[in-house]
């Protein structure tokens, strides 16, 4: 470790990834050649949706290696900084590393420049990192993040999605990705309406993950036996807030009760269970 001072033409400025490439080249992962035949850990379903005064982001807790469960309580939703959140799906190892680099980059910029990046600036930074990861994605180690945060310039919550090439797309209201993303997204689509309250948005996100876990083997459902519940966080003008596990447990309890009631009701009327 030493003091990093650069001649003026070679200064990396506030770019932490660039700094790292110069001073710790060993930290940059070499690209493997040939398709990977390794069974690696995968993080699965993540979802985000907008509500009246912010965004909700949620992710299940399961990581898989092939057909086995590699981890029951992995975290896929992170605070990127005070006013934004990032969630990950895909190859867990590189994805978590990307989140760490992204978090450090945002804080590094803030400290060096004495100002925070705009939400759009943060979204573009993440796009660059996903793009830099493209050679790995080509080898089968794709990372697909979901980014959301509070935009101080527009005074609204915004959601950004990515593809493996680093393409960055803004979603108007909601998105879900990962192996159970399709089911989660459909659930949100059916329950979504303009101007949802924060509480309703959290419930909808939980329902989306429940439905995804119902259909997708790689997505974990609520696990009351071990006390493992999805991670749900909100970002609004007060910043990033992770909803405590106890509250998620209560909400799931209410949801399951209602669902079981609906099923019994459908049974007694002789209708199809939903």
């Amino acid at each position: 470790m030493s003091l990093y001072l650069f001649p003026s033409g070679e200064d990396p400025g506030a770019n932490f990834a660039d700094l790292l490439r110069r001073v710790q080249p060993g930290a940059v992962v070499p690209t493997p050649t040939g398709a990977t035949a390794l069974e690696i850990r995968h993080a699965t379903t993540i979802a985000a949706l907008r509500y009246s005064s912010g965004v909700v982001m949620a992710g299940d807790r399961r990581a898989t290696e092939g057909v086995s469960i590699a981890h029951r309580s992995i975290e896929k939703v992170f605070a990127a900084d005070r006013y934004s959140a990032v969630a990950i799906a895909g190859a867990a190892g590189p994805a978590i590393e990307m989140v760490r680099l992204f978090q450090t980059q945002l804080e590094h910029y803030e400290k060096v420049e004495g100002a925070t990046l705009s939400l759009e600036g943060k979204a573009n930074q993440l796009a660059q990192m996903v793009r830099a990861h493209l050679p790995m994605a080509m080898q089968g180690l794709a990372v697909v993040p979901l980014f959301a945060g509070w935009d101080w310039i527009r005074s609204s919550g915004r959601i950004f999605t990515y593809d493996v090439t680093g393409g960055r797309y803004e979603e108007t209201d909601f998105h879900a990705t990962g192996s159970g993303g399709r089911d989660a997204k459909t659930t949100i689509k059916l329950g979504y309406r303009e101007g949802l309250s924060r509480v309703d948005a959290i419930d909808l996100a939980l329902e989306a993950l429940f439905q995804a876990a119902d259909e997708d083997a790689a997505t974990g459902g609520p696990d009351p036996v071990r006390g493992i519940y999805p991670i749900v966080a909100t970002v609004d003008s007060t910043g990033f807030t992770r909803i405590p596990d106890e509250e998620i447990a209560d909400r799931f309890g209410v949801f399951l009760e209602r669902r079981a009631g609906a099923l019994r009701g459908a049974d007694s009327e002789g209708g199809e269970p939903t």
Partner: protein
Amino acid sequence: MTMPYYVAPEQVMKDRAEYAQKGIARGRALVAVNYADGILVVAENPSRTLHKISEIYDRVAFAGVGKYNEFDQLRVAGIRHADTKGYAYSRDDVDARSLANLYAQHLGQVFTHEMKPLEVEILVAELGPSEQENRLYHIAYDGTVVDEQRSTVLGGEAEAIARRLDQTYVEGWSLRDAVRGCASCLAGPDRSLGADDLEVAVLSSGNGRRAFRRVDGEELEAVLHD
């Protein structure tokens, strides 16, 4: 052919020290003290945007006096050191002592080997788990490091300000009392400093992971006058 004049090494060092001291004495001073919730740094600085005090890492802050461009470069180097170290190892492994040593090495190196010494004095402050473990490393232009316990003064007229601060300092004082006390020590008996003349920041244990926080604008007005 002309022969270079012989100058005794003692004279070279003395000249350089004088040069650096003169540069530093021209600038305004700053003080750092322990207070009830952590460490307080108060600098006399009329600018709202060119900061003397800044955040380095979760529990580490930086402050500099003297030539702005020189200490600002050291500030950025400090952030780079802390962020790369925290990224390579863990956030818990970043500490003020190793950074203070790096600064001392660099300043000492420049002082002895370069044409011009750096006209700066810097402070690396670290908020510890308890007040006894708070650290204030005061690094001089020639690389001398002093590890201060409860307070330190950097910049021009440091000795006079330190004498006043010794009389004013109260163990465990509140933010309000500490800011007012430091401001009056910086000002001296003949003037008074208002919110527009001061830059104030704290490393406070109540701020969560990132302990650094600026006390400015309306909050500083309130602390000084209410």
